């Protein structure tokens, strides 16, 4: 299997995402229409049984998430378009190619949980997407397709941690971008303390297709436990670094060698990092793995945002991980001790290793620190920040040891 399966991106570049009528011409807003005629409980059940799981990285069943929302006078639908993972730009692509599907998906969610207000939290580095979305919302409202469901675009200011749903909510509220402890989960007490569903762009944009083609149909695509399609962004040392939409049972090796056209300049493969900067580095022997959430988890990796970064044989793993550790030191919000101090010390130790000043003791220290961060940090940032370190020590330990002081 080397073909893409375009669902969300089927009409990419053939329709203008800003214009609702363009989208309606290719069957758009039919899903919302259908959702509005359904009983709320049946609608949530339909989404649940489609097996659609969150595309932001946590992989939680979307319908299940919605079913936790308690009755309340005011509720919100929030779209996570913070997309701060380096190497990830699939949400931008979905907006640029098919923004109306996102709006429709949010309105479907609004119908399901009885919310009249949606917010899209857009990454600060995407001002052009904000502009596009505002035009798309205007057009959708003018066409009457959204009905009484309103959507407002809010802009981030460049903080990676605001991709974490509760930090994102804090940011919309005008506070420091810091995660909240859970429970309560946003579904119960989210934006301004009321029940809020936060889903990723890709999750919302899949909903119209689930509604029109049916949950059963969607559930039959790709991996049975993580069905549907996934938009991947392929970067690094490949011949064809671009985005693809593939069924979720697509093979990682095929992503690199078939869609990606193999390693650039005839070099050999060394490692691939899947899921963004906090993802694990996967060695050659694990390449024959399906990209779906559970298969990635089984090899100690994570599908995450769907970023695929390929490194050829000439790349210095330790140097790359040192740079990654700088990134996390910079992006830690500073709220909890394990992450605030841990990301700082990880960077220090990585630099020590990378510059040839470290000993085996430093390696042990960073592994212990990584373990505690994974187990005790408050949010996903601190828990995932050491993954690149531990996965590379596991699979490329010789590259680390080569840099240790021999006679310390």
């Amino acid at each position, binding site marked *: 299997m080397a073909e893409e399966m375009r669902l969300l991106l089927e009409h990419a570049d053939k329709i203008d995402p800003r214009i609702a009528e363009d989208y309606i011409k290719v069957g758009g807003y039919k899903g919302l229409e259908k959702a509005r005629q359904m009983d709320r409980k049946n609608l949530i059940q339909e989404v649940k049984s489609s097996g659609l799981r969150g595309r932001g990285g946590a992989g939680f069943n979307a319908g299940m998430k919605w079913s936790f929302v308690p009755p309340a006078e005011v509720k919100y639908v929030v779209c996570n378009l913070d997309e701060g993972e380096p190497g990830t730009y699939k949400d931008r692509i979905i907006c640029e190619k098919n923004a109306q599907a996102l709006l429709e998906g949010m309105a479907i969610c609004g119908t399901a949980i009885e919310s009249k207000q949606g917010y899209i939290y857009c990454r600060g580095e995407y001002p052009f997407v904000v502009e596009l979305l505002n035009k798309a919302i205007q057009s959708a409202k003018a066409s009457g397709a959204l009905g009484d469901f309103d959507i407002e675009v809010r802009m981030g200011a460049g903080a990676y941690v605001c991709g974490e749903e509760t930090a994102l909510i804090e940011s919309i509220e005008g506070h420091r971008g810091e995660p909240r402890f859970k429970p309560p989960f946003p579904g119960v007490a989210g934006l301004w303390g009321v029940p809020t569903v936060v889903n990723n762009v890709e999750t919302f944009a899949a909903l119209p297709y689930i509604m029109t083609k049916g949950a059963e149909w969607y559930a039959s695509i790709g991996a049975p436990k993580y069905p549907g399609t996934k938009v991947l962004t392929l970067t690094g040392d490949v011949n064809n670094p671009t985005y693809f939409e593939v069924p979720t049972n697509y093979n990682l090796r095929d992503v690199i060698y078939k869609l990606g056209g193999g390693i650039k300049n005839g070099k050999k493969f060394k490692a691939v990092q899947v899921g963004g900067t906090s993802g694990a580095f996967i060695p050659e022997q694990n390449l024959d793995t399906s990209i779906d959430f559970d298969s990635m988890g089984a090899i100690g990796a994570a599908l995450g945002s769907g970023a695929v970064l390929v490194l050829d044989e000439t790349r210095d793993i330790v140097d790359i991980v040192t740079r990654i550790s700088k990134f996390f030191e910079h*992006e830690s919000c*500073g709220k*909890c001790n394990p992450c605030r101090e841990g*990301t*700082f010390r990880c960077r220090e130790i990585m630099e020590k290793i990378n510059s040839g000043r470290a000993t085996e003791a430093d390696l042990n220290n960073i592994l212990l620190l990584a373990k*505690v961060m994974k187990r005790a940090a408050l949010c996903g940032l601190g*828990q995932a920040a050491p993954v690149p370190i531990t996965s590379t020590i596991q699979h490329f330990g010789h590259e680390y040891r080569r840099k240790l002081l021999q006679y310390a």
Partner: protein
Amino acid sequence: MINLTIDGKEIQVPKGTMLLDACRQAGADIPTLCYDPDLRLAGSCRMCVVEAKGRPTLVASCVMPAENNMVIETESPDVVEARTVVLELLAARHKFECPTCESDGSCKLQDYMYRYGVKESRFDGEGPHFHTEDPNPFIIRDYDKCIMCTRCVRVCDEITGAQAINIEDRGHHAKIATPFDGKLADSTCVFCGQCVMVCPVGALTSRVAAGKGKPAQNEKVLTTCTYCGTGCTLELNVKDDKIVGVTSNRDAEWSPVNKGALCVKGRFGWDFVTSPERLTTPLIRENGELRPASWDEALDFAANKIKAIKEQNGPDSLAMFSSARATNEENYLAQKLMRAAIGSNNVDHCARL
């Protein structure tokens, strides 16, 4: 009710009880740094983490409601390891000047490092680098000792309502600061010192009491503040029969009016007690000079003068200015004296302290 097992003990707690309280009820001693029962929860220090069977991560017990059938270990090897590493991470950014630190003996970092046997930090990179100079007369701010528990930020916001400080910058560089990282005096700070009260380490200490005796070693005498009629409970720090400082007793039973909260005067303005300029006897002015007098003489003198003025110019030629430092009862008596004994409604109040 919720049924759960903590360290092998089966216990029952009301729904909504946090794990921390449940653990303490079960007799477990859970260490906390950011937790303060009077402030909103932060869940950020991660010292109170416990192991909940079947969960992939440790849970912060202060922010996790107890759930049915939970099986909790409060001192499992993983828990102890996490707490030890957190302490080492904090130690790596802490300026250890314990021998001269005001908080020596009443420092939670010190206590927990002792408890978990943390003698040094394995993270031997960059040390503390946050020092803050703040030339105010009341509070010493030394962020090289700060552990970022944010209790000061929360108490300033939630109890004092001054919102003078918050967190500035991110990650390891995050620190407690006033707006634009200025001086406390240029902020909305009212120098109530509640931040000093809640600081679990020596990052915020009293400048007025500095060097006079470590609070942990001073004798504590509970008394009522005389500055105003509110009646706040003070904890006088006494050393060699001298007052060397004021701290708070936060126990509502002992400090029912203020639960430890004080104002700038109560917390920092106690040096008048032993001031040589303090009046110790009534004085009567004669020929432009003040001379000591007995209370009887002074009271007679004042009463006679008041009577004379009243007879000569009528009761409304007199006025009474009472004080906010007096209690309600004393102020009541003052106006009663004016209205009933002297016969005038000219009663007023300084309305400030």
